[in-house]
C-alpha cells in the first residue's frame, strides 16, 4: 500500500524523502487514508521549503561560507610520519580550492590498491614503485678515480631489487641519462668513464653530481609515499600528484584512487568528477575544523565553478570575467582596466543584473524586483 503511494509521488518528491517515508510508514502499519494524508503534507512542506524564484542564493551562500571562514585556523599539519612534509588545511586550502589554483601547495594522492595487494601484500615494494627515486637512493658509495678519469659507484643490490630493476635495465637508464659516458656494470660496481678523450677534472665532478640525480623508477613528482591502513585495507598516501600515470599502473584500483588536485581530476575524469572533487575537498576542511556549513551552499559554488565545462575559480580571471556586464566586472577588481577596455571595444551594458543596478540606483532584479509588467 505504501509502495503504490511511493510510486504515485515519484517525481514529485526527492528520492531520499520517499525512502524515508517508506521506511517509517511500513514500520508503523498505518491505514491508507492516513498514509495518503502524510504524503500530501510532506509534499506541501517540501514545496514550501523550496527556494523561491528570484531569491539571491549567491549572496546567501557567500555569507554562509564567509562567516564560518572567519573562525577557521590557518594551520597546516604534518604529513603523518614525515616531518618535512606539510599538508595545507584550513582557510588557505579553502581559498586554494575556490580560486581554482593550478599549482596547489601540497598535491597529494590516495592510491587504493587492487585485491591481493590491498591486504598488505608487497605493500612497501609497491609504494617504492610509485615513489620517484634517483640513483642516490640505491648507492652506497661514490669513488672518483682521478688518475684514470673515471667514477666508480657501489650500489646496494638489495635496494635495486626493491625498485624492481634488473642490472641490464639500470645500464640502459644510465646510458640514456648520461650521454657520452661509457657505463660498465660488474656485480655491484658501476664504472663510469667519459668517452671523449679531452675530458678534464671539472667534467668528472659535474658527472658525479649529475649522476646522483638520474631518475630511475617511479613517478616524477611523487616525493613521498606512505602506506597506511584505512578500514581493513591498505592505502598508499603520496605527496605529489600524478593521477594519470598512477591510474595506469596495474596494481592500482583505478575506480577509487583520487588526487587533491582539481585540475588533474578534470583532465583525466571529466568536469563532473571535478565538481564532486571541489565539494569533497571543501567538506574535508570544514569537517576537520569542526564547522557546519549547509551542503547546498558548497554545491552552488562548485556548480558555478564548473558551469563552463572547465574549472573557473572565483577570481577576476575566473567566473567574474564571464559576467556579461562591464559595470559588474569593474565592481569586482581592477575597475579601470575593465572600463578602459570596454570603452575601447565599444561594449554595451544592458543593466540586466544586480550590481550594475545598485550602482545607478535602480531597483535590482532579485526577489520582488524580478517580475516586470508586460502587456500582450
Amino acid at each position, binding site marked *: 500500500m505504501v509502495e503504490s503511494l511511493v510510486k504515485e509521488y515519484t517525481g514529485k518528491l*526527492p*528520492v*531520499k*524523502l520517499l*525512502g524515508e517515508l517508506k521506511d517509517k510508514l511500513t514500520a508503523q502499519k498505518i491505514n491508507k487514508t492516513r498514509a495518503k494524508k502524510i504524503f500530501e503534507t510532506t509534499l506541501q512542506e517540501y514545496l514550501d521549503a523550496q527556494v523561491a524564484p528570484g531569491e539571491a542564493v549567491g549572496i546567501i551562500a557567500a555569507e554562509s561560507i564567509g562567516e564560518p571562514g572567519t573562525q577557521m585556523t590557518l594551520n597546516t599539519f604534518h604529513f603523518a610520519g614525515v616531518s618535512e612534509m606539510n599538508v595545507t588545511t584550513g582557510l588557505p586550502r579553502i581559498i586554494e580550492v575556490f580560486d581554482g589554483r593550478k599549482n596547489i601547495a601540497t598535491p597529494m594522492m590516495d592510491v587504493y590498491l587492487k585485491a591481493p595487494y590491498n591486504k598488505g601484500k608487497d605493500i612497501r615494494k609497491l609504494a617504492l614503485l610509485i615513489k620517484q627515486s634517483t640513483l642516490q637512493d640505491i648507492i652506497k658509495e661514490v669513488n672518483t678515480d682521478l688518475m684514470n678519469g673515471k667514477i666508480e659507484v657501489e650500489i646496494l643490490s638489495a635496494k635495486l631489487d626493491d625498485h624492481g630493476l634488473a642490472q641490464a635495465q639500470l645500464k640502459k637508464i644510465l646510458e640514456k641519462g648520461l650521454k657520452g659516458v661509457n657505463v660498465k656494470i660488474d656485480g655491484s660496481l658501476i664504472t663510469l668513464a667519459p668517452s671523449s678523450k679531452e675530458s678534464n677534472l671539472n667534467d668528472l665532478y659535474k658527472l658525479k653530481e649529475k649522476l646522483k640525480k638520474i631518475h630511475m623508477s617511479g613517478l616524477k613528482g611523487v616525493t613521498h609515499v606512505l602506506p597506511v591502513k584505512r578500514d581493513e585495507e591498505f592505502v598508499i598516501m603520496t605527496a605529489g600528484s600524478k593521477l*594519470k600515470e598512477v*591510474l*595506469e599502473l*596495474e596494481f592500482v584500483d*583505478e*575506480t*577509487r584512487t*583520487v588526487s587533491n588536485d582539481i585540475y588533474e*581530476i578534470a*583532465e*583525466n*575524469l*571529466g*568536469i*563532473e*568528477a571535478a565538481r*564532486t*572533487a571541489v565539494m569533497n575537498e571543501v567538506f574535508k576542511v570544514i569537517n576537520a575544523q569542526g564547522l557546519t556549513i549547509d*551542503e*547546498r551552499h558548497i*554545491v552552488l559554488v562548485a*556548480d558555478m565553478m*564548473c*558551469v*563552463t*565545462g*572547465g574549472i573557473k575559480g572565483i577570481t577576476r580571471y575566473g567566473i567574474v570575467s564571464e559576467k556579461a556586464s562591464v559595470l559588474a566586472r569593474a565592481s569586482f577588481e581592477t575597475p579601470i582596466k575593465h572600463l578602459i577596455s570596454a570603452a575601447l571595444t565599444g561594449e554595451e551594458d544592458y543593466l540586466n543584473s544586480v550590481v550594475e543596478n545598485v550602482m545607478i540606483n535602480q531597483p535590482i532584479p532579485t526577489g520582488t524586483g524580478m517580475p516586470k509588467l508586460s502587456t500582450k
Partner: protein
Amino acid sequence: MPKVDPTKHILVPKHSKLSEAEQKKLFDKHNINFNDLPIILASDPAITHLKLVKGDVVKIDRDSPTAGKSEYFRGVQ
C-alpha cells in the same frame, strides 16, 4: 598498460545522451534554449565513449547529498 576507463571511477556520475524528443521536452519545460545550458566539452573524458558532437545534450544522474538523486543537464560544446 591497461587503458583507464573514467566512467568506472567513483567520482564520475552516469552520463547519457538525450534524444531529440527528450531535448525538446526539457527545453519546453524550463522555457530555455540550448545556449542556456551549462557546458560540457566534447573532449571531456567522461563522455568520449558516447561519441557526442556539438549540439547534443548530456543528462547526468548525480548523487545528491540532500535529495538522494538529482538530474543535471549539460550541452556539448
